[in-house]
């Protein structure tokens, strides 16, 4: 979508207007700084999904909306976990972290801060495992997704507009 004020509100508005709760939402600009890419996770019944996607595609600021629920796509999320752990469990926690290829981003006598990426289900497991070692605190980034289909973004061409430039201009020049 276009990287413009209000664009995000239009997309989320379409969902909130129908009473849907957004489970996760990520948005950031693309290679082209005038455009952003957004990934939304929302629980919508399959029959309504196509309608919602069509409505999103109608939004002026949206270049393309696609449903990747069943399409070939990579879905990844990042999670930060702070786990408080006893002295005896420290090595066990690190070993578990290694299994999930999580990185240690902070280490104190109280425990660790870990960073893991992966698909959301795998992160759920990671969080469950960490919880078994002690009190945890979790921040998830929300899913980012990339379609693996070969779809080219179709942009509408510029539209010529208005009468000959001079006409109206003459009339109202400041004295």
């Amino acid at each position: 979508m276009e990287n413009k004020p209000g664009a995000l509100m239009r997309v989320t508005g379409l969902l909130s207007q129908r009473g849907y709760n957004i489970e996760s939402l990520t948005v950031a600009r693309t290679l082209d700084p005038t455009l952003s890419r957004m990934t939304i996770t929302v629980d919508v019944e399959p029959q309504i999904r196509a309608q919602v996607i069509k409505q999103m595609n109608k939004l002026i600021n949206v270049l393309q909306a696609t449903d990747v629920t069943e399409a070939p796509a990579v879905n990844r999320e990042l999670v930060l976990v702070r786990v408080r752990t006893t002295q005896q469990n420290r090595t066990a926690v690190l070993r578990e972290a290694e299994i999930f290829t999580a990185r240690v981003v902070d280490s104190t006598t109280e425990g660790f801060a870990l960073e893991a990426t992966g698909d959301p289900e795998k992160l759920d497991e990671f969080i469950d495992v960490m919880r078994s070692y002690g009190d945890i605190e979790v921040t998830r980034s929300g899913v980012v997704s990339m379609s693996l289909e070969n779809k080219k973004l179709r942009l509408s061409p510029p539209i010529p507009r208005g009468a000959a430039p001079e006409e109206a201009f003459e009339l109202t020049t400041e004295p």
Partner: protein
Amino acid sequence: MSSNLLSGAKILLNCLRRENVDCIFGYPGGVTLPLYDALYDYPIRHVLVRHEQNAAFAAQGYARATGKVGVCCATSGPGATNLVTGLVDAMMDSIPIVALTGQVSSKLMGSDAFQEADTFGITRSATKHNFLVKNVSELPQVVHEAFYIAASGRPGPVLIDVTKDAFQAQAHYTPVTEIHLPGYKVYSEGHSGQIRRAAQMMWEAERPFVYAGGGIVAANASDELRALVELLDAPTVCTLMGLGALPAEHPNFISLPGMHGSYAANMGMTNTDLIIALGVRFDDRVTGRLAAFAPHAKVIHVDIDPAEIGKNRHADLPIVGDVKRVVPKLVAELKELAPSMQAKNAQARQAWWKQIREWKEEHPLVAETSATEIKPQHLMAEIDRLSGGRAIVTSDVGQHQMWAAQLIRFNEPRLWINSGGLGSMGFGLPAAIGAQFARPDKLVFAIVGDGGFQMSIPELATIMNHSLPIKIIVMNNGYLGMVRQWQSLFYNNRLSQVDLTCFPDVEKLAAAYGFKGKTVEKVEEMPKALAEAAHEPGPYLLNVKVSPNENVFPMVPAGGAINEMVLRPPQPVEV
């Protein structure tokens, strides 16, 4: 240097002129002072309404009567929030209007400044698109984008919120010759393969049925529709938004379908084997209970909005495109296929027409009359007689709207102007103002109920100000009629808060504003009073006291299938 340095307000007006705007319906206020100052000696007509909601309705009346983009203007805060009903109304009926609103200075935004409201946020879902302009340099681009978006594709309302400092700032004005809307897609041509298949389906059908709507009117595609209907010789219904798309006197025209549609229209829809849906949205007021709607029919659905296809009813053959472009292609394909296919189902189609005619005769839509009281249907029949299918008729929502839609003929598109989708009371009178400005040559009737009229009374001043010869016909039954109808039919006749018996003396009311008004109660005086109103060179306010307890029939009860119509008032049951 200073020669092409203009204020934002003047730049805005220049852009409006380049969009051929000749009339703005508006109401000034604090932050739009710079705009109104620029307007003071600028050659664009401004119509001062008496409430911003009516500015939006009048802009719609203008747009609906002409197809051009209507323009309304309001100040920040309450001005902008007052526009909202008119915007949503335009959204629901796909009417192209551009609303200009002032906003507090950009540095005050978010500080709860005097008359500040989040207009951009509030109108997000009320518009097809909206803009917030804080920088004068964006103004030309935005104005031209707004007009393009409003009028193209499926039309709709667009709002431009401009901060006071953007109105005041000076900038070099370079007219925009090109706009960029990379994400805005307009589908117009239709898929040629689908069009060919649709034509085949049409010839193959034994009981084809054309269901035409507001999309035909919006696209100015009445002639194209007529060509298709005549070639196929299909019975045709026009929706509430589509009345006039096919002339009411056309032999193929039945009536409007749906909740208050005719018996023939709804039986036709229920029994057809092919619905040819053109510029319609299968609205719940048309389909009744969806699961029971047109159970034997395949559906060809042509619409410019891809989101309408399959939204309510599955389309067996969807065509996304502009009916103006697609329908002639359908006609061409039909002609090409005619030699080999036209004769195929000729017999079945004759039988279909025979059946339709029988339904029409069985339960025709005729105006009831009485010797002792003015039946509302009788009033509509008299208005119809005066109009002859040629006058512009506006309405609010409710019983008067349904009787007008059933009984007044519209032989051209853009004559019937009503609040269809949103069903806004107080729409008809201000819409008539816009329509009369747009079409000074036309006789304009504003048919309103006694409820809706009381929401529009302030605009009598606007009408008088501009000596608009609008004929305001109040269908006065002393009730909020449609709500009373439902209370009496479905809520044990417990009439809750629908009594409107306190009503102003219209003769005095009209006189207070400086024009003629009259109340008519006797049935024998009604036709003459109506003719007198119609022939009055200026505005006229006619209050017609009709039978208070009349209900609109046929009626499909909420949740019912459209062939389960209640055709006439239920007889009293002994308890």
